[in-house]
Structure formats: C-alpha cells, structure tokens
C-alpha cells in the first residue's frame, strides 16, 4: 500500500464515516467535511506534474489476487494525471457548489455525499489502474454510484426511470468491456495495460483481435454516450444539478473517452478502430448538436450538447489513430488531432461544468429550467449571466475563450483528413469536414439559445414560481473559478501544453514519444482554412439563430419520430412482453405438457446420440437361449400390459396391474431369484391394495365417468418412442459388454468371507450393507411422511371433513 493507493482509496474510507459525521454534526453542512478530501487529492496530484512532464511514470503495486495475475497496480502517466486532476479539481468545485445547492434541512445529505465519494474514488480508480480487471471493477463502481446519484430523489418516477435506463445501458457496455478485457488477456496473457501495449504488434494478427476491439469499443461508447447509446444521458438529467455537472459532463461520460485513449496504442493500428471511433464520434456530434436545438429544458440542451462534444472528442481520437500510420512525427498532421482531443477534453470539462452550475442556479433561483418561461434575467442575475456568456461562447467556439482554440484545432484536423491517403480516405474523407462544419453551426445555435433565451428578452415574473434574485456568493464561487479557467486557458493556452497536454498525448501515442515533439497552441496562426470555416460558422449560425422561430416548428415534428428512446422503450416493453408470453406458453401448469416435453427431450437427445455416434449394435453372441416358459410368461405380461391401456374401468386396470406384478414374480422364479420373487409377491399385493384404497377414495363427481382412456396421437407416438429408445439402448448396451461382471467374487467369497450361503442376502447386509441402511431410511421416511400427511391437517379453518 503506497500513498497513491491511499489516495484512490481515501474517498471510499471517507464515505464510510460520512453518515457518522452527518449524524454528529447536524448544524454543519456535511459537504464542508467532504470538501477537504478532493482539495487534498488535487494538490497531491498536482505534485506529479513535474514528473510526468519529463516523461516519467509512477507505478505502485499492491497484491489483490496474485495467483490470477490480478494486482492493484496504479500508475500515473500524463493521461491518467490529466483525468485525476479533472476528477479531483472539478470534484472539489462540485462539492463546494453542492454545499450551497443542497439544503441542509430538506435533503438526505449523508446519502448524497456517500454516493458522490464512492463515485469519486471509483473514477480515480478507473483512470489510474493498470490492471484491466481492477479497471473493470472500478468501472462498474462508477455505473453503480451513478445509478444511485441519478435516482437520488427516488420518490420521483422520472428519476427512477432515468436511473434504471442509465444502469441498463452502461452495464450492458460494462459487461461487453469485461468480455473484451478477457479476450485481450487471452491474447496477451496479461491483464496489465502496459504489457499489452508493449506487445501490440503481435496482437494485431490474433484471431480474437477484432472481437476484442468491438467489445471494448461497445463498452466505451455506452459509457461516453455515443450514438446510438446516448439516450441515457438526457434522462440522467433528473439527478441533482451538481451530479449532472460532475458525472454527466466532466467525469463519468469521459470514462469511455479515457478508455479509447488508453487502449489506442493497442488497437489503433487497425483501420477498423480508426473508422469506428471517428465515424461514431462524428455521427454523435451531428446528432447531439442537432437534437440540442429542439430542447426547451436548459439541462436537456446541455445534456445533448455534452453528447455532441463527447462525439467531437471521440472523432478526434479516432483520427489521431491515423498518426500511427506515418513514420516521422515531423510532418505528422494527425498527432494534432490527438492534441486537439486532449485540449478539448479539458476545455469541455471547464465550460460545461460552469454551464451546468449556471443552469442549476437558474433553477434554484427561479424554480424552473424551461427556456419558454425564462427571460430577461440579465439585470437580475448579472454574475450568473457573465458566467453563462463565457461558458456558452466558449462552447460555441468564439474567441477569446478556450473553446475557440480547440474548435479551430478540431476543424484543422478534419480538413487534414483530406490529405489522408490510407483506407480510401481520399474519396469519402470530404464528408468529415462537412459534417464537422454543419455540427459546429448547430453548436453555435444552441449555445446562443443557452445564453440568450434565459437572460435576454422580456422578464416575465408571473411565469416564475419564485421571485428571482442573484445567487448566494458561495454558489457562484465554483462557476466563477471554472469561467476564469475558461478565459485563462483561452488566453494562455501554453500554460497547459507542456505541463498536461504533452504528457497526455504521449500517454495516448507512446510509440511516437521517441521523437521529440512540442506543442505550441497559437491564437493566431495565419489565414488558414479553419479560420474561414469559423467565420462561416458564426455568420451562418447567427442568421439561423435569428430566424429560429421560423424553422423551429418544423424541427419539432421531425426528430420526434427519429428518437431512439421510442426504440428503447418499445424494445424493453417488447422484451418483457415476449418473455412473459413465452413463459405463459411454456409454463402451462399442466403436468401432462411438462411430461410430454421431458419425454420428447429424452427421445430426441438419446435418439440423436445413437444416430450421431452410430451407437446401435446388435450382437447375439451373449444371448441366452429363450425357453418356452419365458415366452409364455412374457406373452402374459405383454397381453396384460396392453389390456391395462384399453381397460374400461379403473378397477379392471388395478386388477390387471396386479396380474402383471405376479407374472413378473414368476419371471423371477424362472430366472432363479427366489428372494426377489418373495419380495415382489408381497409388495405387489400391498401396492394393489393401496391402489384399491386410492380408487375407493376418488371423489364421486358427476363429471367423472368410468370410461376408457381417450386416445391422443402424440401421446401414443411419444410413448412408443420412449419404449423403442429404451429397447435400442438396452440391446446396444448388452451387445457392448466390455468386461466380465464382478459377481464371481461374491459367489466365491460369500461363505468364505461373510459366513452366509445366501449370496443375495450377504450382498445386501454385508458386502454392500450401506445401501440397505439407506433404503431402510427411505422406507422410514415414507412411513413417517404418510403418517404426517394423514394426521396433520394444517389447512386454515375447520377440519376439511
């Protein structure tokens, strides 16, 4: 256990004592106690920056299940550190914000902070784990704690729906990720990510490579809300706003991004990876930004915007994979895509976090998040408005904020696709910048909606539940810090480039690290195509925003039909219905049907095995000669058995059954088994009398007529089939005797060893007496059971007689 292990485990430990703190210090908001931890962790992780800047990697190991190669290996490189700083940094701000957002009196704060801390620890574990199994464990922990946080107001139906939906989708992805991990470990014979990366060259040719790639990507796409698995994210907005800001903009939804970035060195040589990641990202980008426009709920707009921005980062990571197909870093244009991805990841966390907090403040101070009701808040909430302007303009990609820079880099990477001469990119590649440009226009429009609709226009006090006023300063601190970061990163982007972005890019593309490379993010980089694209975005976006009322109506009716939620809901309902109807059809409750299927299975499985293995053999060598008397007795038994089937009354059946039993005892006589014959006679007599007893007690119902058994063709077929199969098996088994029986030993030693001349009895009580003991037990249990059934009448109410 090292300090690093303690750092990851600390949130879990604190989560243990949060309920006690909540109970003991009721007058202090529990969030203040919690706040200390992420700040401590943030400063702890800041210390790693000088190390990772030099390209050093810090690893710590603790054993978990060493025999299976599962160690709790944590390691900090540029990529892991970037995420750890995001998690702890934004975590601190969110906890601070939540202290003012959540009421001490009304909310169950102990639960909230326990869930939040569990999530924080799990997320740290995901980004710092080197062992894939440990990573998966933490991964599922994030799904679980996110489920708990979304359903925090569990008395609301929508919260429970959103929580269930997100759990189903993310766990679907989580399980497929587990499959991918197992395939990877089979290929590379290790769970360690770094060891897998080291042998990535050999993995390419393995047959399991493509399935592993697809499964891992499915896991990453579901977690990061990529198309078509994005549908859980808008419904997760039922969570408290600090949760939305933390989980569903800055951290958890980036776990999939992290996974793609982390495993890029393993998979990125493959063209499939490049195509899947970049195209899924682009589709998500377009669809998310398009859907965001038609939303009227502030948080829903932000949710779809998160989806589209995640798609943007994902597509950049996909294109970054192209860098591996070029040798030298010098003229390699595609490293720039990875740089853009990492930079936008940071930027998105800052501006989206602040925007969510702004939405929370508006909700908190006005009682609604509906943009149709809101308007003219600029004068009432000037600070919030300022923050919103900074965040939204950064999201739209306007200078001088950081979103402008990363958007420029994004457009540049998309334009560079045209120069890519692998995978036929020269023909279809033209779609990339076009889609990117269109999506950016949409992004501009919804960013303007977010900032202009609530704050400008007419102030309608009568539509609002509360009298709006500026938020308390405590609530504003976190978004102000984030907005300041947006500006600082926008104006001085090179603060980040050497310290954070370079080590992170090295983490994503370690094979390129050999070459010296330095990133310089310039504000003004000349009259490049992307600059004109940005100007075009602003111009077209502005025109479209102004004419929004004219075309928004037609938009409203269009996407409703294309919604994937309909598919999800119908799919879930259909699944439940079809399984219910399947159960209804299979589990009829009729024993006759069950027996029919049991026997059918018996016939089919055994018959198929006999046919498939060609197992039927008939060897008459061991057959004894058939005597005349045996023939007669057999004839009697057959005649009697057939007669039972056609007996008119039940009494006749019982009597004929007795005759069968006696004839069998005659067989025992003929085959020289006197003990069996004796026992068979007695038992047959007793069981016939028991049958008579049952017959006598049958209720005298009018509907019960004494008549012949009705004939059913499938019953006849199945019974004949069972008989034939058993006969075939018996014949084959007899023809395939592999070795002699051991009975000669008993015959020789019954008197010598056990002092008895009756070999059967000696076997029963001496050689194999244990069986006899338990058969005695069976009889006692049966007797006791019958006694209990007759005597105990536990039916509620009176005596059934």
């Amino acid at each position: 256990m090292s300090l690093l292990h303690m750092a990851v485990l600390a949130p879990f430990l604190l989560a243990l004592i949060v309920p006690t703190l909540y109970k003991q210090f009721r007058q202090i908001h529990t969030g203040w106690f919690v706040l200390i931890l992420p700040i401590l962790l943030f400063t702890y992780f800041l210390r790693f920056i000088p190390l990772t800047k030099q390209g050093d990697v810090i690893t710590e190991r603790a054993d978990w299940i060493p025999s299976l190669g599962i160690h709790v290996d944590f390691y900090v490189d540029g990529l892991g550190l970037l995420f750890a700083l995001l998690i702890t940094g934004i975590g601190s701000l969110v906890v601070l914000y939540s202290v003012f957002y959540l009421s001490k009196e009304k909310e169950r704060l102990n639960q909230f902070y326990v869930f939040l801390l569990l999530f924080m620890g799990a997320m740290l574990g995901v980004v710092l784990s080197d062992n894939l199994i440990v990573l998966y464990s933490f991964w599922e922990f994030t799904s679980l704690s996110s489920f708990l946080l979304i359903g925090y107001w569990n008395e609301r139906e929508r919260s429970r729906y959103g929580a269930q939906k997100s759990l189903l989708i993310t766990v679907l992805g989580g399980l497929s990720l587990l499959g991918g991990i197992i395939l990877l470990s089979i290929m590379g014979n290790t769970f360690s990510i770094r060891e897998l990366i080291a042998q990535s060259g050999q993995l390419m040719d393995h047959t399991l490579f493509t399935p592993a790639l697809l499964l891992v990507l499915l896991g990453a796409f579901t977690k990061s809300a990529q198309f078509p698995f994005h549908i859980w994210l808008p419904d997760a907005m039922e969570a408290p706003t600090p949760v939305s800001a933390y989980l569903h903009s800055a951290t958890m939804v980036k776990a999939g991004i992290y996974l793609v970035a982390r495993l890029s060195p393993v998979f990125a040589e493959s063209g499939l990876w490049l195509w899947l990641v970049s195209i899924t990202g682009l589709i998500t980008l377009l669809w998310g930004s398009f859907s965001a426009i038609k939303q009227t709920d502030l948080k829903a707009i932000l949710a779809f915007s998160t989806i589209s921005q995640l798609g943007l980062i994902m597509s950049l990571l996909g294109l970054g994979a192209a860098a591996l197909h070029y040798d030298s870093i010098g003229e390699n244009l595609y490293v720039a895509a990875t740089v853009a991805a990492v930079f936008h990841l940071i930027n998105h966390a800052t501006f989206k976090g602040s925007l969510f907090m702004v939405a929370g403040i508006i909700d908190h101070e006005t009682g609604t998040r509906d943009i149709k009701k809101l308007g003219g808040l600029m004068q009432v909430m000037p600070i919030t408005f300022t923050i919103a302007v900074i965040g939204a303009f950064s999201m739209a990609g306007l200078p001088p904020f950081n979103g402008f820079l990363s958007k420029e880099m994004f457009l540049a990477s998309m334009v560079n696709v045209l120069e890519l001469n692998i995978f036929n990119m020269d023909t279809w590649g033209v779609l990339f910048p076009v889609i990117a440009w269109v999506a950016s226009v949409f992004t501009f429009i919804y960013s303007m909606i977010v900032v202009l609709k609530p704050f400008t226009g007419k102030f309608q006090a009568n539509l609002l539940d509360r009298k709006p006023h500026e938020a308390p300063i405590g609530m504003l601190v976190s978004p102000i810090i984030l907005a300041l970061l947006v500006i600082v990163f926008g104006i001085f982007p090179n603060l980040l480039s050497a310290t954070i972005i370079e080590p992170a890019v090295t983490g994503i593309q370690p094979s390129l690290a050999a070459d010296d490379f330095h990133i310089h993010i310039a504000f003004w980089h000349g009259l490049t195509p992307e600059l004109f694209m940005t100007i075009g975005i602003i111009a077209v976006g502005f025109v479209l925003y102004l004419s929004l009322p004219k075309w928004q109506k037609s938009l409203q009716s269009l996407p409703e039909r294309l919604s994937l939620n309909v598919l999800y809901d119908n799919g879930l309902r259909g699944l439940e219905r079809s399984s219910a109807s399947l159960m209804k059809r299979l589990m009829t409750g009729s024993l006759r049907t069950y027996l029919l299927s049991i026997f059918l299975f018996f016939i089919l499985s055994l018959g198929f095995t006999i046919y498939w293995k060609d197992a039927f053999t008939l060897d008459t060598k061991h057959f004894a000669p058939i005597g005349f008397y045996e023939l007669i007795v057999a004839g009697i038994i057959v005649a009697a058995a057939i007669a039972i089937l056609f007996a008119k009354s039940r009494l006749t059946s019982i009597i004929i059954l007795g005759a069968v039993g006696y004839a069998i005892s005659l067989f025992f006589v003929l085959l020289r088994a006197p003990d069996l014959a004796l026992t068979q006679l007695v038992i047959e007599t007793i069981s016939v009398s028991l049958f008579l007893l049952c017959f006598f007690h049958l209720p005298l119902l009018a509907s019960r007529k004494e008549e012949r058994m009705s004939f059913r063709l499938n019953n006849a077929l199945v019974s004949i089939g069972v008989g034939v199969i058993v006969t075939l098996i018996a014949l084959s088994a007899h023809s395939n005797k592999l070795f002699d029986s051991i009975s000669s030993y008993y015959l020789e030693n019954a008197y010598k060893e056990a002092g008895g001349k009756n070999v059967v009895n000696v076997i029963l009580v001496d050689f194999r007496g244990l069986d006899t003991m338990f058969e005695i037990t069976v009889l006692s249990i049966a007797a006791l059971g019958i006694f209990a059934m007759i005597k105990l009448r536990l039916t509620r109410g009176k005596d059934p007689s």
Partner: protein
Amino acid sequence: MFDLALKIALLGASLSMVGFLYRLIKGPSVPDRVVALDAIGINLIAFVALASIVMDTGAYLEAILLLGILSFIGTVAFAKFLEKGEIIEDDRNR
C-alpha cells in the same frame, strides 16, 4: 418320461393361466376378475412348484407358501371391498 410329464404339466399350467388371463381381461363383472386373479395365484403355486422341480432346487418353497397366503388375503380383501366398500373398518361402535 418324468421329464416329459413335467413339461406337459407346465404347459398345462401355462395354458390355464392364459385362460384365466382371458377371463381377467374380459370378465364382464369385477367378481369374475377377482376369482380369475385368485385362480392365477393358485396356478402360480403349481407353476412355481413345477419349475422348482425342473430346476432341481428347494429355494422356491417359501414362495409357494407365501403365494398361498397372499392369494387368500388378497381375495378376502377384494371380496370385502366389493361387499362393504372398504377393507379395514374403523367404526368400532356397531
């Protein structure tokens, strides 16, 4: 000669058992069947006795005695069932 006699006797016993079986299956009323079953029991005694002579063993003599007892008890039980509808009466205060 003795062997032939045994075989003829066994054949006779078998054939008579087939005859009783016919009555057992066909027998228009239940008492017919019960009597047939009783006769089959007696027939079995003969059959077992003859068989044990053929096999030259005394191991089946218990079976013969048991069959005698059982077919008696069985027939009595059937008869009582047919007459009174139950075999063991539990009503002591007649």
